């Protein structure tokens, strides 16, 4: 299935886009989405493997399941405020 991962801030500027679309299996978890992001962007693999993802506006654990209808966002902050 297809998961669209919203991205923000300097990452969005660097990649010149507002989201990254990845393909994962129908039983995918948050961890699988991280892995798919890392595979798609090998030069930032370490970053994507450990980046925190929010599912439907709450931080999600690596084991949490993901569905194609979920709103997934990559929340990696470097000191806002």
């Amino acid at each position, binding site marked *: 299935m297809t998961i669209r991962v919203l991205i923000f*801030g300097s990452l969005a500027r660097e990649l010149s886009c507002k989201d990254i679309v990845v393909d994962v299996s129908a039983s995918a978890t948050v961890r699988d989405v991280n892995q798919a992001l890392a595979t798609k962007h090998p030069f930032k693999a370490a970053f994507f493997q450990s980046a925190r993802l*929010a599912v439907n506006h709450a931080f999600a654990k690596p084991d949490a399941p993901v569905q194609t209808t979920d709103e997934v966002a990559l929340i990696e*902050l470097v000191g806002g*405020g």
Partner: protein
Amino acid sequence: MSVLIRISSGPLSSERLPHVLNPAPAASLQAPARKSQSNSSSDHAENISAPAMQQVGATVVFEGVVRANEAGRLIRALSYEAYEPMATNSLTELARDILCKHALIAITVEHSRGEVAAGERSFRLAIDCAHRKEALAAMDEFIDRMKRDVPIWKSPIYI
């Protein structure tokens, strides 16, 4: 006890928001976080009771101002991007958690989104409490956790 959260467009006013919007029973603290917000601002308030206000012995206000340089380069402004409603919800949860942990009376948080010019305010945290030590510890912890967990990003706009 009172929690008031507002994320609004552009620089913050120099005037602080009043802590007390509508006096109401303290039980309103248990009300669920508001999930919706308008395009122009997101504003989430819980209310403070009059007896609680009489215990306030200290108010500490932190204001973040956009500095004219960022990592050594001159900037004209910072642009803040908030991922809503997660930004407002997580600020609200953070404020409730800090309020309970440090036995505070009220927390008011204001954060800008969009462009804020150098020299203007982009963030304000006001804490009412009985004593000073709790307020300072709470302020430090709030800002550390906000920077780590609340989905608001800043981008420099260079001159």
